[in-house]
Structures are given as structure tokens and as C-alpha cells.
């Protein structure tokens, strides 16, 4: 890395400053949030009322509640009153239970217009919590580049200006801020600084992300984890916030103020031991991270290949987990928060870049995680690990979501193959399958806000319409292969052969992101949920259960990417019952409150329904918006059908009683399509019914009363939608 200019704290002009009273956390809560308006430079402390704690619990629940209160039904993502809320949750910040350092970030999304939420590691969230706040609301629009600094030791919030020469791209900016704002160059002081930032890409594309840093003592530099989905980085930059920084030194075993610290230790140690013993035999997270999934997905025809057209390729082994294991630096405790022994946050060190503004420099690449390796790998028909890593690095530092970027680029490449795009339309970029340099060029153009990158960066929903209108592309085909829901690009699993997973992706609040439900194996491979009712039950339980991680500030991975050795013997192994029990005990150990399995689901259900009604309030949240593009449901093109002809023919025979031998390819495609679309409609009916929603997808007032989400303003939205008024 080239020499970075270093600043002193005095180089950052203080635009506003407010002191606050420091007080220790009690039972996982501060019962106080912080609001910073970068437009008026106002800093406000807000108490958390008991009722808010009871109904919204924390994390994503607090985030959505604060966002609801801070915005209006008419608020657009780029309005000053749109907020970015970073919230943690009561369990977040304990150092004993693996996966306990997550921040939940919510905002009105530039991609979907409705609330997005993203779950991210790094030290910022826990530090903010120990500084004294359960959430941070960022609102307003600054008239100049701004930094918000929360110092938890001093008890002060500062709104700072930006000195000349401060970097934009995260790998430089976060490093620079860490060194400039640390109290001393002592590694412990460097580790006490956590930075949230985006990058130049987020200035020019709605798919901007937030990087959350952590200072890695062993590598002697910063690492970053991403709040990737839905464009929150774009909102940050639209507010002209260069970075948000938390400083806190003095994390201890019981900084979280647990009701029963010894129980927290006991439950955490139990999982540490399970991980140390079983991980090598199970997912190898400690060596490979989530990239361990690559060959599994390829083997099961689930690895997105050429814009989700196919699910496997003979080249699959070239990017298998063992290949990544060799590239990822081994033997480092790569947790994204202290105490995560699952430690999946690996990196490739000393990686020499071949393109772009940092060409020739050696950098540390955070990742790749599975989604990036898949979405920017086989999905682009790229099997060159260097290419995947280069895109990974630049996406992060420019502040661009690798999932949206991968799905967007694969769409562009398919359009190139179909002749919709050509060199003239891409400003000379060759977007043939496998050409990672072409993809990287699109990315550099996005960061520069120039040329083809500006158009490409708008995302597939926009591009599909644009290509039909401007280039005369077949509008239906464009809609079919543009993989998005509600405007958000789909993440990286093939959902075609699993109806339940189509629901897992598209019957979601924020758009097709796999964090609500991952049912492919349960549904397609193990056939455990054959009926619509069973699928609907799974599409109730898993989204609710997984929402709970977001209320608590927890990572999902230590729930089922490590399992007790005897898990398979349980009647419901997919739920990993022993770990659910751990979570309930952990919650009680921290908050001092009991939690039955039913109440755990209810906590989530309240927030889940609230989020759905938030969508409704913003004029969305309708059944029609929960339908996937056909590429996510079945074969769009003739060669796509032919590649799996045996499978599809068999389904025509067995499921529809048709004779494929007597049908033309076109007829077979049509019959398959009609059948699958109808199946999906039946699935929606079953799921909405199970969730207590109307046929159009609106939670009913009765259901809201039943689950305890019967706030007057929430009921009013449901009633207005049902009465046809919104």
C-alpha cells in the first residue's frame, strides 16, 4: 500500500459537539438511543420507553421503529428525513457466545423504496453500545463532507468536518481514520476505533454498501465487514457523511451488564468447545469461511452459473473450497467480533491487484464469502480466483454490494450473449462470459461515475426496462432474466427447483435475500416439506426464527453452520434444537427475563409484521410485488430447458400427466411455466394464510392484536390498506 497521509484529531474541524452522561449498561440495554442530524448538526439523546423495548426488543426492531417514526409515508430514500439507523440488540456485545457482535442497519432503500435491513459484523456496533446507546439514528443532509464521531470513553459526540486529502475508498479511508483518530499508535488504541464508511461507488450507484471496520492486530491493519444489501452506503453518501466512527477502549467480559455473567460464560464456552471439536468435520468455517459451500452447491445444481441459467458446470472444482483454503491466510482467529471462534471472516493477504486505480499494489482482500465467490464467479462464468478476488476487493473499497453487482453483471453478460448489448452500448467493454476484466471495468466506471458504469450501476430492474425501451429488447425476456424482487437483486442460490425457496426469497419483506429462509435442502433434496401447508409452515417458522438474530445483534452462522454431533438424531434437525435452547438461555442470562420457544417466535413475529406494514405504509407490500422473475422459478430459454430436459420432461409426465414426447419444445416450456406459476400462487395463498395476512399480503388487524403489534398507528395502516385507501 502506498504511504497514507495521516492526520491528527485537530485537523478535523469540530462543527458540533455534545457531551453526554456515561453510565453502565444494565442487562444488555442502555435504554437510550442517539440521534444525529448532520444537516442541522443537532445531537439528541432519546430514552427508550419500556413499551418500545417490550414490542420491538432491539436491533432491527429498534431500527425499524425509529425509522418509522422519523420518516413519512411519502419519504423517498434521498429525502433528508430518511435515516440510517444502526442498532444492536440486548445480546450483542457479549464476548462469550460466538457470533454476538452484529449491528443491524436499516434505511429506506434506494433500490426498493421500502425499508432494507442488513446484518453486519465489525466492532462499531458493540462499541456504540458500550459507549451508551442502543441505536444510532443518522438523519438530515450535510452541506459539506462530514464525519460523526462517538467517543464512549470521553462521553462525547462530535460532528466533524473533513480535512483536505482525506480518502474516499474504504481500504484507505478506514485505515486513515483509524490511525488519525486513535488516541495513540498503541495497537490496543487502534483496536479501539471502529469506522463505518462507503466508497466512491456508493456516490454513483444505488447499490452502495456500508463497510464496518475492525482493526486486526495481527495483520497490523483494518479489515472490513459489509452491510451489503439494499444501498445503505448510497444513503450515507447522499447525506454527505464520509464516515461514522466509534471509539471505545475497555471491553470486558461483562461490558454488556448481563444479569448472570457466569451463565453467559458457560453457554459460550460450550459452543466454543463444540466448534473446536466439530468444525473440521463439518463446515470448516475456521479454515474456509462460507466459501466451503462452493462444491456442495455445484454438485447439487444450485450454484448460479451464467445468470442463474444453470446450477453447475464441469469447471466447478476450479473454485472449490479447497482452492480457497489455500488462498485464505490460515491460522488466524478471524472473528468479526471478539469471541467468535467460528471465525469465518477470512482474508487473502498480499494480493496484487491487476486493474484499476490501485493496480500493482498489494492489498488484503476481505473474503471471499460464498455469495461473492458464487455471484462474481460462476454466475459470470468466471472460474479464475484472481478475478473473483479482484472484484471482491474493488466492490468493498468502492462501497458496492457484491451480491447486487454479481447479479447485475451476470444480467449484462447474458444481454451481451443475446445481442442486446454490444461494445458500442457498453463504451467498449467486452462483456463476454468469463471476462472478469470486463466486469471489473464496469466496476471502475461505477466508482468514477462515468461511462457505462453509470447506467449499469442502476441495477437490473432499471436495466431490464431500459434495454426494452431503448434497445428494443424483448420486454418479457428482460423481465424474466432480470433477477430481482422489489428492485433488489437476488442473492446467489438457484431457486428454480425448490418452490419453498422461491418463497424463501420472494415472500420476504425486503426482497430476495437468503437471510430469511434457506429451504432448498429441506424441500428439494430431502423432500421433508412436500405439501403447501408444510412449506407454508417452514416459511413461517424459519423467517421468524431468523428474524430473531436481527433483534438480538446475533450472527446466524453459529446457529447451523456448526451443529452438535448428535443433531441429526433429533426429529427436527433443521431447527438445530440444542442451539435454539442455547439462545434462549443466553437471552435469559443477559436480560434476566425468561423466554419460551413461543415467545421467541412472537418477538420476531411482531417486528416482522411491523416491517410488512411499513412496506404497506410506503405504498408497497402487495402480493404482486412478491412474485419472482421467471428465471428464479423455471427454465426461461429453450437451451435452458434442454440442458435439464430429462428432469423437466419427467415433471411434465409425473406432475401434469402430459406426454412430453408428443410436445414441441415450445409447448413444453409453456406447460412447465404455467404449472410453476400456478404452484407459486398456491404457495402464496398458503403462506399468507399461515402468516395471518390477507390474500393481498396485508397483516390483518385481528392478527396484529393477537401477536401484540396493535399500536394504533400500525393498525391504522392495516385498516387503510384493507379498506383500499392506500
Amino acid at each position: 500500500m502506498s504511504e497514507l497521509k495521516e492526520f491528527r484529531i485537530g485537523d478535523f474541524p469540530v462543527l458540533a459537539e455534545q457531551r453526554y452522561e456515561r453510565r453502565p449498561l444494565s442487562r444488555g440495554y442502555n435504554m437510550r438511543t442517539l440521534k444525529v442530524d448532520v444537516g442541522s448538526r443537532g445531537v439528541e439523546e432519546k430514552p427508550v420507553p419500556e413499551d418500545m423495548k417490550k414490542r420491538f426488543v432491539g436491533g432491527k426492531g429498534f431500527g425499524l421503529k425509529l425509522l418509522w417514526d422519523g420518516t413519512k409515508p411519502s419519504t423517498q430514500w434521498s429525502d433528508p428525513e430518511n435515516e440510517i439507523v444502526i442498532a444492536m440488540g440486548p445480546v450483542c456485545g457479549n464476548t462469550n457466545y460466538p457470533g454476538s457482535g452484529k449491528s443491524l442497519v436499516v434505511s429506506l432503500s434506494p433500490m426498493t423504496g421500502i425499508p432494507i435491513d442488513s446484518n453486519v459484523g465489525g466492532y462499531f456496533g458493540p462499541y456504540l453500545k458500550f459507549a451508551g446507546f442502543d441505536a444510532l439514528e443518522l438523519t438530515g443532509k450535510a452541506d459539506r463532507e462530514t464525519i460523526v464521531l462517538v467517543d464512549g470513553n470521553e462521553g462525547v459526540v462530535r460532528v466533524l468536518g473533513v480535512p483536505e486529502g482525506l480518502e474516499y475508498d474504504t481500504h484507505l479511508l478506514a485505515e486513515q481514520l483509524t490511525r488519525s483518530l486513535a488516541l495513540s499508535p498503541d495497537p490496543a488504541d487502534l483496536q479501539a476505533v471502529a469506522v463505518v464508511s462507503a466508497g466512491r461507488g456508493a456516490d454513483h450507484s444505488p447499490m452502495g454498501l456500508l463497510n464496518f471496520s475492525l482493526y486486526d492486530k495481527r495483520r497490523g491493519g483494518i479489515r472490513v465487514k459489509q452491510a451489503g444489501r439494499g444501498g445503505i452506503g448510497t444513503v450515507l453518501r447522499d447525506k454527505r457523511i464520509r464516515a461514522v466512527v466509534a471509539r471505545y477502549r475497555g471491553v470486558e467480559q461483562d461490558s454488556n451488564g448481563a444479569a448472570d455473567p457466569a451463565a453467559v460464560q458457560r453457554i459460550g464456552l460450550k459452543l466454543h468447545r463444540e466448534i473446536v471439536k466439530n468444525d473440521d468435520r463439518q463446515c470448516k468455517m475456521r479454515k474456509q469461511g462460507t466459501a466451503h459451500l462452493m462444491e456442495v452447491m455445484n454438485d447439487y445444481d444450485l450454484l448460479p452459473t451464467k445468470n442463474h441459467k444453470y446450477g453447475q458446470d464441469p469447471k466447478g472444482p476450479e473454485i472449490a473450497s479447497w482452492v480457497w483454503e489455500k488462498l485464505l491466510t490460515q491460522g488466524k482467529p478471524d472473528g468479526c467480533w471478539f469471541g467468535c471462534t467460528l471465525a469465518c471472516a477470512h482474508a487473502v493477504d498480499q494480493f496484487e491487484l491487476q486493474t484499476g486505480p490501485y493496480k500493482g499494489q498489494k492489498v488484503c482482500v476481505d473474503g471471499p464469502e460464498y455469495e461473492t465467490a458464487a455471484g462474481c464467479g460462476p454466475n459470470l462464468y468466471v472460474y479464475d480466483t484472481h478475478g473473483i478476488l479482484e472484484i471482491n476487493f474493488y466492490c468493498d473499497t468502492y462501497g458496492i454490494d457484491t451480491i447486487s453487482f454479481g447479479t447485475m453483471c451476470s444480467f449484462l453478460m447474458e444481454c451481451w450473449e443475446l445481442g442486446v448489448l454490444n461494445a458500442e452500448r457498453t463504451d467498449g467493454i467486452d462483456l463476454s462470459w468469463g471476462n472478469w476484466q470486463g466486469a471489473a471495468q464496469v466496476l471502475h466506471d461505477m466508482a468514477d461515475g462515468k461511462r457505462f458504469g453509470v447506467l449499469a450501476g442502476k441495477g437490473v430492474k432499471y436495466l431490464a426496462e431500459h434495454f426494452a425501451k431503448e434497445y428494443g429488447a424483448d420486454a418479457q425476456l428482460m423481465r424474466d432474466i432480470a433477477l430481482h424482487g422489489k428492485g433488489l437483486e437476488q442473492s446467489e442460490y438457484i431457486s428454480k427447483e425448490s418452490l419453498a425457496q422461491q418463497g424463501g426469497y420472494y415472500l420476504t419483506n425486503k426482497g430476495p435475500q437468503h437471510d430469511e429462509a434457506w429451504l432448498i435442502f429441506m424441500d428439494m433434496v430431502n423432500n421433508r416439506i412436500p405439501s403447501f401447508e408444510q412449506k407454508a409452515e417452514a416459511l413461517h417458522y424459519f423467517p421468524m426464527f431468523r428474524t430473531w438474530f436481527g433483534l438480538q445483534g446475533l450472527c446466524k452462522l453459529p446457529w447451523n453452520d456448526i451443529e452438535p454431533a448428535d443433531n441429526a438424531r433429533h426429529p427436527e434437525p433443521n431447527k438445530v434444537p440444542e442451539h435454539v435452547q442455547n439462545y434462549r438461555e443466553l437471552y435469559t442470562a443477559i436480560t434476566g427475563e425468561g423466554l419460551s420457544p413461543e415467545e421467541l417466535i412472537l418477538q420476531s413475529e411482531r417486528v416482522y409484521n411491523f416491517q410488512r406494514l411499513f412496506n404497506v405504509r410506503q405504498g408497497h407490500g402487495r402480493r404482486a410485488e412478491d412474485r419472482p422473475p421467471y428465471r428464479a422459478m423455471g427454465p426461461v430459454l429453450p437451451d435452458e430447458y434442454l440442458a435439464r430436459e430429462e428432469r423437466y420432461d419427467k415433471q411434465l409426465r409425473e406432475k401434469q400427466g402430459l406426454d412430453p414426447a408428443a410436445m414441441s419444445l415450445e409447448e413444453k416450456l409453456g406447460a412447465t411455466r404455467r404449472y410453476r406459476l400456478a404452484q407459486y400462487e398456491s404457495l402464496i395463498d398458503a403462506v399468507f394464510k399461515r402468516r395471518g395476512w390477507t390474500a393481498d399480503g396485508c397483516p390483518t388487524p385481528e392478527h396484529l392484536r393477537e401477536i401484540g403489534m396493535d399500536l394504533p398507528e400500525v393498525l391504522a395502516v392495516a385498516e387503510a390498506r384493507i379498506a383500499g385507501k392506500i
Partner: protein
Amino acid sequence: MIKYLRTIDEQCVGCMTCAAVCSRLYAKEENPAKARLLVNDLGANSFHLVACDQECRRCVAECPTQAITVAKSGVVMIDKKLCVGCLACVAVCPIGAMRYYPGEKHPFKCVACGACAKACPKQALEIATKDEGEKA
């Protein structure tokens, strides 16, 4: 050179003098659960003494805050100021030499000070040295 506490199980009679001395010295109370070494009663008058071998360093590699380091003497030490109490070190220790006491913020281990060796009536413990990589 690595300084360490050598344990000679055959000589141990389970009198617990070592644990008492150690816990009094480091925990200011007589409580074997707080001793930096462990006397395991295997039954039939046979005992197994556990103390850090100062050599495997699995805990050193695992500690997220680098609170565990190797001193010049070769002894593996915990810096409490840097420790966040995650107990990852306890989980990775292959012999159970890294210990903790429920509700206390930091784990603890033998630092080869030799207080127990001096007190042991049966010479079951002694401070010894070994070269890097050489097993005791």
C-alpha cells in the same frame, strides 16, 4: 529455552498443598478451583497433575486481542488489561491447563512461578527448562 512446571504424577499423593498455595498466592483465597494447576483424582490413589506445558501455544494463536503472549522466559502469559474474557483460550487448550472461575472476568493458567513446587512434600512438581520443540 522454555521455563515450565514439570509434573511427576507418580510422586503425587493428592494432598492438595500445591493447589492451596497457588490459589492463596494468586486468588487470595484457598480454593482449588482457582488454582493455576489442577490435581485430578483418578481413584485408587492415583493422581494426574495438569499445568500448562508453555509450549503448544494454541491459546496464544487463538486470542482475538493478543492478550496472551510468550514472555522471554518462554512462559505463556495473559495480560488482563487486554483480555476481553471470551474464553476461546480455555476452549482450545488441549489439556485443560487454561482455566476459569465462573463469573470471574479473566481466565488463568500456570506461569511457572514455582511456589507449588517449593511447597510440595513429595517433589511431584519442579520448575524445569526445555528447548523449543523438545517435548518434556
